[in-house]
Every structure is written in C-alpha cells, then in structure tokens.
C-alpha cells in the first residue's frame, strides 16, 4: 500500500493551490437510488452502473451496503466519496462494537452522524459529492432518511435521489402504502426502476434490491428488468423530423 504525504495548503477557500485538494466536480458517478418503507422494514433499489461522464464505464458497482446490524446505506454521486464514507462508517461501527455494552448505533444515529459529516464538509467547500439514503430497522421501528451533499437531511416513507426524485417519487406518492408486503414492495420498486431505465441515460439494466428487517440485511443478486421497445412511436423515430430544419 503506497503512502502519500498529505499536502497542507491551508484554507481551500482562500488559497489557490489548495484548490487541488478539494472536490470541484465528480468523476465516476452512480445514478438514482429509490427506497421505500414497507411492512417489515425498508427496501432499497439501485442499479450497478458507474458512469465516467457520459460513458457507462463500470457495470458492477454495488451502491447499497449494510452498515452494522441495523442499517443500509445507498449512495448516488461520486463513487470514491461513497467509498470514503463507508470507511468512516466502518470506523464508527467498529468503535461502537468495541464498547460491547448492549448499546448499538441504530439507523437514526448513523443518519445524524452522516448529516453532520456532510454539512461540515460543505461548510469547508470540500463536499463529499453524494446523496445518501439511509434505511434501517431497530427495535421494530423502521427508519428511512436522506442526506444530500450540502447537508440537507430529512426522513420520509419513501425517498429517491437524482433522477429518481423526478421520475420515481410521483409514482411512489400515488402508490405507496404503509402495509406493503415484500412482493408488493419489490414490484413497486421495479416499476420505478423501469421508468428510470427508459428515461435516465446513465441507468443500466442491472439492478440490485436490498432489504432490511429486524432480522438483518439481504442484498439480492443482480438481475435485469424486462423492457419493451416495440412501441409504435419507436418505429420510424425520425418520421417527424424530415428535412434540414
């Protein structure tokens, strides 16, 4: 493992050289995460793509990970920042476990910790370029929340990031219920993911759905959705655009 000595150029806001040390734009990004609470806990869906600008470069990136015993973290945005966050949380969970005292961090605590981290980084003009979704179950209570790269944080019954906010949430607002069974929840998420697949150019047809209940976390194997491209409108797509104008 190579070790580079960190350069301290001081304040990233005032010092020009320090600009090289702070995040200006994302490079490898993940697209939407969609998550819902259901009867027994929380379901979270994401595709496995990592885009490098407009190139769909990586197709096997897991963007949903288990945190401790009680939580699930999904991230869209810069993948390397997501990995950094996973390292922070690893340390957090490790220290929590080392106490070995019958207390453990639940999803609420993890969510708030992440909010503090994201907000503090934003204040230093060096954000972690992610929108995070935190879901979990503890002591029978389901929890689902979101934190953005500028530290905006809230909880809801269903959340989505990026394009999911525009395409998936309207569906969820209409069709979500508190007593969804596991199968109904998965179907609902697949409906959202299918729309995203058709309409979000950075989505790929390889997704995972993760489930968290009181018993623990399960992340499904990657699979694809059936799509249909034989709509009339797709035949002769240039029919309405003849001529140079």
């Amino acid at each position, binding site marked *: 493992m190579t070790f580079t000595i960190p350069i301290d150029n001081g304040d990233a806001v005032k010092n020009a050289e320090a600009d090289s040390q702070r995040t200006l734009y994302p490079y490898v990004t993940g697209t939407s995460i969609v998550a819902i609470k259901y009867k027994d806990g929380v379901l979270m869906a994401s595709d496995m793509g990592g885009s490098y600008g407009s190139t769909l470069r990586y197709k096997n990136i897991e963007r949903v990970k288990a945190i401790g015993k009680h939580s699930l973290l999904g991230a869209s945005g810069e993948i390397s920042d997501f990995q950094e966050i996973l390292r922070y949380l690893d340390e957090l969970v490790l220290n929590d476990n080392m*106490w070995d*005292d*019958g*207390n*453990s*961090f*639940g999803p*609420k*605590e993890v969510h*708030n*910790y992440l909010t*503090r981290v994201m907000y503090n980084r934003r204040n230093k003009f060096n954000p972690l370029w992610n929108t995070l979704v935190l879901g979990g179950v503890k002591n029978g209570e389901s929890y689902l929340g979101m934190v953005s790269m500028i530290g905006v944080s809230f909880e809801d019954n269903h959340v989505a990031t990026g394009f999911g906010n525009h395409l998936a949430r309207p569906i969820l607002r209409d069709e979500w219920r508190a007593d969804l069974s596991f199968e109904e929840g998965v179907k609902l998420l697949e409906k959202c993911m299918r729309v995203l697949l058709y309409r979000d150019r950075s989505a790929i047809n390889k997704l995972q759905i993760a489930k968290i209940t009181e018993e623990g976390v399960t992340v499904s194997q990657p699979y694809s959705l059936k799509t249909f491209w034989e709509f009339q409108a797709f035949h002769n797509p240039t029919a309405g655009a003849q001529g140079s104008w």
Partner: protein
Amino acid sequence: MFRNQYDTDVTTWSPTGRLFQVEYAMEAVKQGSAAIGLRSRSHVVLASVNKAQSELSSHQRKIFKVDDHIGVAIAGLTADGRVLSRYMRSESINHSFTYESPLPVGRLVVRLADKAQVCTQRSWKRPYGVGLLVGGLDESGAHLYYNCPSGNYFEYQAFAIGSRSQAAKTYLERRFESFNESSREDLIKDAILAIRETLQGETLKSSLCTVSVLGVDEPFHFLDQESIQKVIDTFEKVPEEEEDGGDGEAEAEAASAAPAEQGGAGDQDVAPMEM
C-alpha cells in the same frame, strides 16, 4: 492514615504498591456530606444531605442534571464536582448533537473514569477530590455507577458515599435485593430512609435533603419540598411541641459534627454557594 515519605507526589509509588495521594483524595470524598443512589429496573433515585456552612448561608448543590436521562450526585470537593459535571454535560450534549440520541451512561462513565485516571499519572496534576454517583437510563436499562478519584468505576444496585454513609450502606444492604422490582414510590422512600440513617438522630425534614428521580418516560428532575415532606410524613411522626426544639438540636448537632470530622471544615469552605 499517617504521613510517610511516599505521599508527597501522586507519581510516587510506596514500596507496598500504593499511591498515597490517590488514597488521600478518596479520604476527601469521605468527608463530604452524604449522597445516596439506588436503582430499580426502570428508575434511578439520587439523594443527598443538604449541608450548609451556617444558618445564614444556603446549602451546597450536590446533585446535578447532566441530561434528561443522566443525573449525578457528588461528595467531596464540590468545586471539582462542578467541573466534572460540566464535562459530563458537554460530552452528553455533543453526543446528542452528532447522533440525535442519548449518550449511553456506561460510555459516559468510562470517559469520566479515564479523565480521573490521567490525574493519577501526571506529576503536575492532582486527583479530583470528589466521588460521583452517576445514575442514568439507556437502551440496556437503568444504571447506577460510582466514580472514584482513583479512576475506578463500579456499577451498583445501590450505594452511599460521604460522611456517615456506612449507616446508609447498612440500610441499603438489608434492602437492595428488592430494589430491582421496586415501584418508583418505594424507591424514593428507600432513598429518604437511607438519608435518615446518615443523620443519626437528627429529625428528618424535607429541608435537610434533596431528592432527584429519573426513569423510563420520566426525565431527570428534582422532587419539590412538599413531595419529599409527604414521604417523610408517612414514616416520621414529629410531635408538634418538639419541632422547634428539634430544629435547634439539629443545628447544634450539625455544627458540632463538622469540626469533629477531620478536614470536613476544609472542603466545606471551598465552593461558593449557589442557589
């Protein structure tokens, strides 16, 4: 305990493996007025005896709220106790801010103990001269801990510290097995009865003691004088005529008791009065 050639610095061991300065610090705890803690499965009660310098002054505050779910009672150098309470409040609120969740008592107590240990291993510091009874509630239930100047901490079902605490401990030893299942009211009554034991003959009045409670669905708070007096009235019958005479007796006893305790007057002088 007699003076010897190994007791000047806290960083000097005696040939028998003792740190005398730390032990002297623990003596300071024994000189403070009594503080008592007991817990059931769902509640923790902290009580203390109100000692005042003189009739003219107010009594020292010995019980502090650290958070809604944690309280601490101190005995010994009250100034040290105040500083440590402030530290505990700070730790508790920082945890709440970061995790939006109450700091588990056990973790607070360990940090406190580590802080005390540092003072037993630096030549330019001295141990804190205060014992702390930390009572609190967390996910794993109700807890009562005792933190020593030595940096040790222990968990208890019930405990008493300070002067004449042995009498209270004897009382608590007889009754502790039933505390886990006690109701809140019985627990409070037992705390006040334990306080009575430390007064050794003085008539128990609500003005002489401070009682605080915390529990499941009950944030830390002090009981007002009326409620305490009501509990006292259930077991103390104070005849009307004797009351004024009893008061005078109580003052005289307290005044004579203080100089009799070695160093007792010393640490009573330390902290400014708060009301």
